[in-house]
């Protein structure tokens, strides 16, 4: 598996680490209710197919990336900077 970092180009899987679903970018507001936090921290869509995930280019530029990947084939479909993704 190779991931094309928008800043560094195509790099080996070993340069990256993954934190999980890109839903992690949508942190609940302060004072949100418990179920909302539970959903954010624990519950997952866990899709079999295209999935947006949060990856970190730890062995490269240090950027956080949103990688769209097919979890059934490991094909990398799209890579963006997380800083641009967040609205």
């Amino acid at each position, binding site marked *: 598996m190779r991931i094309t970092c928008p800043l560094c180009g195509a790099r080996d*899987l070993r340069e990256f680490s993954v934190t999980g679903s890109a839903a992690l970018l949508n942190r609940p507001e302060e004072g949100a209710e418990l179920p909302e936090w539970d959903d954010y921290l624990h519950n997952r869509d866990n899709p079999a197919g295209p999935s947006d995930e949060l990856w970190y280019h730890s062995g490269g530029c240090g950027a956080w990336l949103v990688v769209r990947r097919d979890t059934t084939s490991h094909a990398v479909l799209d890579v963006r900077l997380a800083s641009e993704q967040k609205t």
Partner: protein
Amino acid sequence: MRFNALQILKQGLTGNRGWAPQWRNPEPKPEYDIVLIGGGGHGLSTAYYLAKKHGLTNIAVLEKGYLGGGNVGRNTTIVRANYFLEGNSQFYSHSLGLWENLEQELNYNVMLSQRGQLMLCHSDGQRDAFARRGNAIVNQGDDAELLSPEGVRALVPYLDYEQLRFPIYGGLLQRRAGSARHDAVAWGYARGADRLGVDLIQQCEVTGIDIENGAVRGVQTTRGSIRAKKVAMVAAGRSGQVAAMAGMRLPVESHVLQAFVTEGLKPCIDHVISFGMGHFYISQSDKGGLVFGGDLDFYPSYAQRGNLPMKEHVMEAAMTLMPMIGKARVLRSWGGIMDMTPDGSPIIDRTDTKGLYLNCGWCYGGFKAVPASGDCFAHLIATDQPHEAASRYRLDRFKTGYGLMDEEGTGAQHNLH
């Protein structure tokens, strides 16, 4: 047909032509009392104990592929009861107890081999943690022995004791632990359940769960709709998709775990051994292949295969610990879909939908759990009360934060186990 010495002799003398199929291949009926989704180890053992202990036999196990084609046939078959935390320790203790009587119970050779499992430690801190864990295991009634470096060397002289980087400080040995034949466990439970009247329906994928007014009514499948009073989800790595059919989002992320096997060798590794400083564990199968594995690849996956970096890591750890296996040729590697929970412990619970039950989150340790999981899940489905050995496997522990079972002490967060 019951297996016994006389049968084997008779069949042997008559060309083995008299063996009958081990289970029926029935058409699905329009309605059952209980439908189990998933014919892996846990689904089959649940069906068996529902019939055997609770007398409930109007049951179907629906399997989208073939029986035992999921993780139950892909794992590295380690059976042990050396967990540390309250909740896990009594459950796995219960499971090991059931393992020890399984062959008699099922009249099936599951090839349980209590060859002992040895976990190695490589620092003072790790040794202290092992001493504490060993005491906890002994207190719960199972066996554990803390070995000195000399004790380890006497048991397994072939490890690399000379290296400076990860010196071996000792080990924690559980003699009752070991391995079993994974397929045989699935087949034994399948045969047992079938003989008690359970319908095992293969090539039948569940595509929808019917819910009316907060109660489950049945399922939609690739072989038509089936009504059911109770429906139980036991789909391991596919739990997320199955639960989504009931409108649920689970605290589960599916990851890939790889394993490896070498060509057959003469007996050389007599125990199950795990390295404490890298992700590597190994045992030798009865056919002679060295069966070994390491950690998750650590990205979500349903591919049932992994990538090269983790393979390299596992091989490096193997060479660090036991360079003697360096010349063995690896024949195969594969991967399975692991249903990972945030705290690394499983879930056996009811759901908010009446008559709908959930069994999942087995992470990379659900093979040893097959007997107790079936026993406890059957108890829950039959009586609507949790079995005492599994009462802590609640779905709501993540929401409440109460009763988390994080054996590794790394935090109850996805991607840390």
